[in-house]
């Protein structure tokens, strides 16, 4: 059985305003594979399901073609649809309880298709319906009850039994697990898996990313009716390519994801195509993104351009203009002009020495746009050096640095100011990072004046007021004339943040911004930083020695030891199941129970692993040989250690090309 959806477009007409639900969808469902369709509500997921079932309401228009085993089903009339409904394509609808007729018993409704379509005798049909329900864990006395007498879980299971009664070749599930407890969710997942094993294909429509990632084979991400990305299921959280998928993953309270929740910038609800009567534009239908707040707010989206542009963290000029089509990146297909999430900043083999002390030893780092990367490690492990190099302030001794894949060195030479404008830095010690002679207005306005992009006094004044408002500081005249010494440390730090962000940077480097602040203020500033990061779509390098802090805010974590990146990977894996002994030691010490004697003054051994002297697992090789970067199979999580703490069931492979951004064997 093979279902191909080719260039499917569905619009809902309601007197003048046409709601574009699906826009040029291409999707293929094969036998025995579960495809998940994820996206926010209003993205058209359910519409796709109903289109396949031919249940679109009267006021809808659909074009394109859907082929089921080579015969077209989009334009079929009622009789034609009735042939394939439930026998070939069955669907489990959302909002389960309302899907059952309150006036008939459950077993009758489950048996009904058999009686009506296969004109089975009544009691045979009831018999097989009973068995189907028993398979779903519903006993006889429950089967003969009425819908309003069953619990949500039982209803969902009977809905599944009803859908599978005629063994359809394609099963569509619309939000099968919403409002279900964990136990039932597991049971349902198990049933869906059995269906796949039996050879049918499954289309799982859900916003439950966890389920999608665990259960399905491949995932298609839908945004405003367009497929933004299709990818293998495993990489949903680990390696999202499209900025929207990243943002979606980040805002999903998955069990593993430790990071605080972060939403997606801006709002988007509907794509209304309607004619614009007032301004006399030519009678051209164009799209509006209508936010929930306003019924008719006019934010035009150019007919061509990428839909996600207003909320994208890495959109640039031509994202608005050019037509965006799917591009293959690895085994992902991404609808992004810039080929999925671009690397905001790439450090290739960067090293830095201060005289004898190796501050940074040949480190590779790729930071993706909109990502929050935390560098943790002891003091003196080279964290700040890495941050400062990334911020372009500090020049590395060797290695290359690319910002938006443009070599930073050339950029600095050509036009340092514009590069400076793209990067914002927040320093550790607030009071020192500002000049006490300048008023708050001058401090914040300084970057504008430097880069000469402030415009006239009034515009600068406005931008400063807006920047201060962003960081929740009063923007009255009286406050602007204040001097840093009249403010508390927290306020100063927020002024620094304002200063850093006034030039609309796309990268923010924060070097332990909150370590000088007391916890209450720290929490507020951190929360502010995270909000700004989400709102402005910043890529952020966050240096901290506090593992707890890293857990809270980082997408990816890098552990530095003596200038080397000993472990790097998604924060849930690095901090959840650390590979490198040093990381687990760090976590234990952060946890407060010390975990063994900590020798602080051990002399770093040359050539070998710098942790060897303190490593309990160290053996001879560790002292002499540079441990290679070891990477678990496809988990973007690697560590430089001979004997990584691998839990038994994960096999590890040496020298597998690691996707975590760190070069396998760094040039030494």
């Amino acid at each position, binding site marked *: 059985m093979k279902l191909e959806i080719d260039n499917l477009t569905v619009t809902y007409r309601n007197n003048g305003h046409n709601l574009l639900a699906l826009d040029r969808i291409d999707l293929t469902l094969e036998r025995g594979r579960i495809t998940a369709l994820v996206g926010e509500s209003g993205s058209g997921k359910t519409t796709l399901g109903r289109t396949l*079932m031919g*249940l679109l309401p*009267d006021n809808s228009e659909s074009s394109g073609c859907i082929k089921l085993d080579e015969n077209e089903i989009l334009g079929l009339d*009622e009789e034609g*649809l*009735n*042939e*394939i*409904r*439930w*026998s070939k394509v*069955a*669907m489990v*609808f959302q*909002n389960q309880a*309302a*899907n*059952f*007729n*309150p*006036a*008939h018993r459950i077993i009758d409704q489950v048996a*009904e*298709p058999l009686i*009506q*379509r296969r004109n089975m005798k009544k009691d045979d049909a009831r018999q097989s319906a009973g068995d189907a329900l028993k398979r779903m864990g519903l006993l006889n006395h429950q089967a003969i009850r*009425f819908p*309003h007498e069953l619990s949500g879980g039982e209803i969902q299971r009977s809905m599944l039994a*009803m859908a599978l009664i005629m063994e359809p070749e394609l099963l569509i599930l619309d939000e099968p697990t919403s409002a279900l407890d964990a136990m039932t969710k597991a049971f349902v997942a198990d049933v869906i898996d059995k269906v796949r094993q039996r050879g049918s294909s499954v289309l799982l429509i859900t916003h439950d990313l966890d389920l999608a990632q665990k259960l399905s084979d491949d995932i298609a991400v839908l945004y405003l009716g367009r497929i933004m990305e299709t990818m293998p299921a495993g990489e949903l959280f680990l390696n999202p390519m499209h900025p929207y998928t990243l943002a979606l993953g980040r805002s999903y309270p998955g069990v593993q994801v430790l990071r605080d929740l972060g939403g997606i910038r801006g709002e988007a609800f509907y794509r209304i195509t309607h004619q614009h009567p007032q301004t006399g534009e030519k009678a051209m239908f164009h799209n509006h993104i209508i936010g929930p707040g306003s019924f008719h707010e006019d934010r035009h989206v150019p007919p061509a351009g990428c839909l996600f542009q207003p909320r994208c963290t890495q959109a640039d000029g031509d994202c608005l203009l050019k037509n965006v089509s799917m591009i293959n990146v690895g085994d992902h297909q991404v609808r992004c002009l810039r080929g999925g999430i671009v690397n905001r900043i790439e450090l290739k083999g960067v090293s830095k020495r201060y005289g004898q002390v190796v501050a940074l030893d040949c480190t590779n780092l790729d930071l993706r746009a909109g990502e929050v990367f935390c560098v943790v490690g002891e003091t003196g492990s080279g964290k700040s050096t890495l941050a400062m190099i990334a911020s372009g302030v500090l020049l590395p001794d060797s290695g290359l640095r690319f910002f938006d894949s443009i070599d930073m060195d050339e950029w600095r030479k050509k036009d340092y100011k514009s590069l400076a404008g793209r990067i914002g830095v927040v320093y550790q010690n607030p009071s020192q990072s500002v000049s006490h002679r300048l008023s708050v207005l001058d401090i914040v306005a300084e970057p504008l004046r430097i880069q000469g992009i402030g415009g006239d006094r009034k515009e600068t004044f406005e931008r400063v007021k807006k920047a201060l408002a962003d960081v929740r500081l009063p923007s009255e005249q009286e406050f602007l004339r204040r001097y840093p010494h009249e403010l508390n440390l927290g306020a100063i730090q927020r002024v620094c943040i304002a200063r850093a962000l006034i030039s609309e940077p796309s990268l923010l480097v924060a070097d332990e911004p909150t370590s000088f602040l007391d916890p209450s203020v720290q929490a507020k500033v951190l929360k502010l930083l995270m909000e700004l990061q989400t709102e402005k779509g910043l890529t952020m390098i966050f240096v901290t020695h506090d593992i707890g802090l890293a857990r809270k805010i980082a997408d990816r974590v890098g552990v530095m030891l003596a200038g080397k990146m000993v472990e790097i990977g998604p924060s849930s894996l690095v901090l959840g199941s650390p590979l490198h002994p040093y990381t687990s030691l760090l976590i234990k010490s952060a946890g407060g129970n010390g975990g063994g004697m900590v020798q602080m003054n051990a002399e770093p051994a040359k050539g070998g692993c710098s942790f060897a002297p303190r490593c309990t697992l160290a053996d001879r090789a560790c002292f002499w040989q540079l441990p290679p970067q070891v990477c678990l199979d496809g988990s973007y999580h690697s560590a430089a250690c001979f004997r990584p703490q691998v839990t038994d069931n994960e096999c590890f492979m040496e020298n597998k090309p690691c996707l975590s951004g760190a070069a396998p064997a760094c040039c030494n």
Partner: protein
Amino acid sequence: MKDGHYIKLTAVYFFAGLVMVYASYSLPKWLPGDFVTAMYYGSNVTLTAEQEAQIRACYPCQEGFSRYLLNLLSLKWGYSYAFLTPVSDLILEALPWTLLLFGGAHGASMLFGFIAGVEAAWRRGGWVEKAGVGCMTIMEGVPEMCTGVALLMLFALWLGWFPSSGAETAYSIYSAIERIWDMTHHLALPFTTLFLAYLPGNFLLTRGSMVMVLKEQFVQTARAKGLPPSRVRYAHAARNALLPMFTRFGLRIAFMVTGAVVVETIFSYPGMGTLLYKAIGLRDLSLIQGIVLISSLMVLFVNLAMEILYGIIDPRIRNAYKLPA
């Protein structure tokens, strides 16, 4: 329903029955004048005082309520003064005609109204629905009297297709089949009048409740199951639109006795309505009491049946009584 509930239900109904019996006993007595006034005062016969007293004597004045109840239970419903026949015979003679006319017309208009309502609601927004609702609303405005006389003039007088009065050609020597034929022939016009009088109401009611049901989710599930359209429309949608229609049917049956008085008068059709109207005119107390009793019992019985059937028609209501106060 819990059994406790049944006992309470029947107890209350019994009490209501008792009140109705008392009402049927006492209300007619309130009517001014009595049988003798109604019969003799305006007649060609002039009574002297003692003749009047003598006549009054031979019509038993009403015994007490307990005696009345006793007679009732022992099925001695008393004698009609005017017709000098037992009240039960009269009622049994008139009831079948009313059942045939009122029951038939009511049932047919219910069935036809329901199907038309379901079809109109299904083609929601189409011209079928607009046309249907439009002309039904106009028909609803026309009182049954006018339809009756109009049909009478059209079919009985000008076209001569149907007889103009009576339930059957009186004392005709017909075979059984011919007699049935004759009865249907006579029934046609009054039946159509009542049918047209009830049809609009039923149609509009069904259309209304169908519109509500079609919005439900399970209708879409039914369509998704690929069931034939008629099954979806009737077994699923219409099944849930049945409740309001069923309630109206029950309430209307209660009006059976007096419902069709006007039509019975126009077509001189024998029925309970005319019998009651004549009995009231003649102040024939025992006959009035009998008829009022029959109609009360019918209302009681219909309500009891509806209460039980409610649970079957809509399972959700089955435990309506257990709702928290």
